[in-house]
């Protein structure tokens, strides 16, 4: 449905987009995930028509969008600040796109009613945005964008303005609405948890390029590069090289691992903290030694901050019953079988 190819864009000498490409199929939800400044918002704005690309193409359902002005693109947009019209009621906000399309009043009213039911705000149609809570405003913004029945829905950091509790509730609801509506959706976010919860596929962006697109499982379990590996979830990254027996770290530890699936010049070793166990195992294979930096109490477990072979600290969750090592103490870690993954340093 949506096909973005090789977008480039500079702002006054600074390269914001460096050949970014992605695609989204019918009824698919794709999350554009990356840190601040990676170019995801610029990509969104180019697709929406509020920004021009220096080169590259954007097609929606086969139609070339680049030539089309923003107000003719038939794309639904939900802004980060919701951008509700303050002088109009919720119902009028939702009806705005329908008015622009010349829909008759009774049809409009019916459609607005449908949308309000969809986002579960029936009864609040006469309220002004200033009289609605943040979560309610977000739903009105969503209803307004969906009312016009767009071919593509663009969401810009949809849940970032909400507090944590509200966010998890709305995440589930949003997912439900998107599935029910079946519109191709592109979500821009810097929050990986949000991306994982809402998207069918995730496109990881950094420095103006899309490094990898895949299902949440694919990008988490088989990251294409160090950046992707470290961006998603927690990662222990060990430097070294591939050898006959496995991966040899710069500190001289040999760890068994499968042969890399991607061909690259340099590899690092990715170990997720959930694959680490405190203590030594039989056979002494895949052992690492670590220094305890500190420990933090979390409701469900205690987090142990460990420095492994000079890497950045990783947090290992251990159950409360386990004996807690002291800061400064050296401990042994075992990697569970299959827990080591060689990952290219740079995306291919």
């Amino acid at each position, binding site marked *: 449905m949506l096909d973005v190819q090789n977008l480039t864009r500079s702002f006054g000498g600074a390269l914001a987009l460096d050949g970014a490409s992605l695609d989204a199929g019918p009824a698919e939800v794709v999350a554009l995930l990356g840190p601040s400044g990676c170019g995801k918002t610029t990509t969104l704005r180019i697709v*929406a*028509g*509020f920004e021009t690309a220096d080169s590259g193409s954007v097609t929606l359902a086969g139609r070339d969008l680049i030539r089309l*002005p*923003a*107000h*003719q*693109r*038939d*794309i*639904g*947009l939900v*802004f*980060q*600040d919701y*951008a*509700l*019209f*303050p*002088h109009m009621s919720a119902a009028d906000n939702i009806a*705005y*796109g329908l008015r*622009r*399309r010349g829909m008759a009043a009774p049809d409009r009213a019916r459609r607005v009613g449908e949308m309000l039911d969809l986002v579960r705000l029936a009864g609040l149609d006469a309220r002004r945005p200033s009289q609605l809570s943040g979560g309610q405003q977000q739903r009105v*913004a969503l209803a*307004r*964008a969906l009312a*016009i029945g767009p071919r593509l829905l663009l969401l810009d950091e949809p849940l970032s303005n909400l507090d944590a509790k509200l966010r998890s509730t709305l995440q589930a609801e949003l997912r439900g609405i998107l599935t029910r509506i079946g519109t191709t959706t592109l979500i821009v976010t810097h929050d990986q948890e949000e991306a994982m919860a809402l998207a069918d596929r995730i496109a990881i962006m950094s420095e103006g390029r899309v490094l990898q697109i895949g299902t949440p499982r694919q990008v988490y379990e088989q990251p294409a590069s160090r950046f992707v590996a470290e961006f998603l979830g927690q990662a222990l990254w060990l430097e070294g090289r591939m050898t006959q027996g496995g991966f040899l770290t710069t500190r001289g530890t040999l760890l068994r691992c499968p042969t890399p699936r991607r061909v690259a010049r340099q590899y690092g070793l990715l170990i997720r903290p959930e694959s680490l166990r405190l203590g030594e195992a039989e056979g002494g294979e895949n052992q690492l030694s670590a220094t305890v930096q500190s420990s933090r109490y979390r409701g469900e477990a205690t987090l142990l901050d460990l420095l492994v072979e000079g890497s950045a600290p990783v947090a290992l969750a251990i159950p409360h019953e386990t004996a807690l090592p002291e800061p400064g103490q050296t401990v042994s870690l075992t990697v569970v079988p299959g827990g080591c993954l060689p990952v290219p340093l740079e995306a291919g």
Partner: protein
Amino acid sequence: MIRLLDIAARLLVRFAVLAAVLFLLVPLLVACLLSFDDRSFLGAFPPREFSLRWYRAFASNPTYMDGLMVSLQLGVVAAAIATILGTMGALALMDPRLAGRDALEAVFLSPKFVPTVVIGFSLLVFTARLGIFDPFTRLVMGHVVITLPFTLRAVLASLIGVKRSQIEAAISLGASEARALWDVAVPAARSGIVAGAAMAFVLSFDEVAVSLFLSDAFTQTLPIALVAEMRANLNLTIAAVSTIFLAATLLLLVLLDRTIGIERLAGDVGARG
């Protein structure tokens, strides 16, 4: 010791405020009182006998009444033109990414820095060269020039709350940029448009320098008529006029407070000076 100095300083400031308020108000009150003076000459203050003779003198003077008519018509026409052009300009200038935006704003505000006598005189010479001799047309030209900065600034100030994302949201829903501005920005600027128009009217009504150059014997604004008369023969008619203006101002204030609120208006007006 420091405490004493502090208390003295604060008393001084309180005194300054009081002095300033009295300085501003007392002449107005004096004029108000004098306007009801029954004496036919400008006598010592305070008046003993009261009447409405000076109000009658004002209302029955054809020169003043003609001048009033001219001033009212001029004010409405000039304010209308200035408000339309100022609103259009403000709608364009509200986008901070616009090329040369700050320079454009400076150009629109530039009449404020040109002395009104210069504007009046230069327009006189200019229109004479072009063969435009109708005084009302000339007056409209001059008054629009001097009121445009105020209408622009008033509308621009009230557009501050409109976020670019709202305009883009309207565009994404199918409105062209012009339509989006009309649906989203103009309603938000309502208070600024009204305030700007009111300021333009008042400014035009009170303008002397420009009007002096561009009026002629048959088409005069009220201030010109008043000044001409008072220079020849100072009498208390002017006190009556002052009091009428005072009453009109008070009315306007009450109206503005009901619609916009004095505190907010003061903020808009004082924003950039």
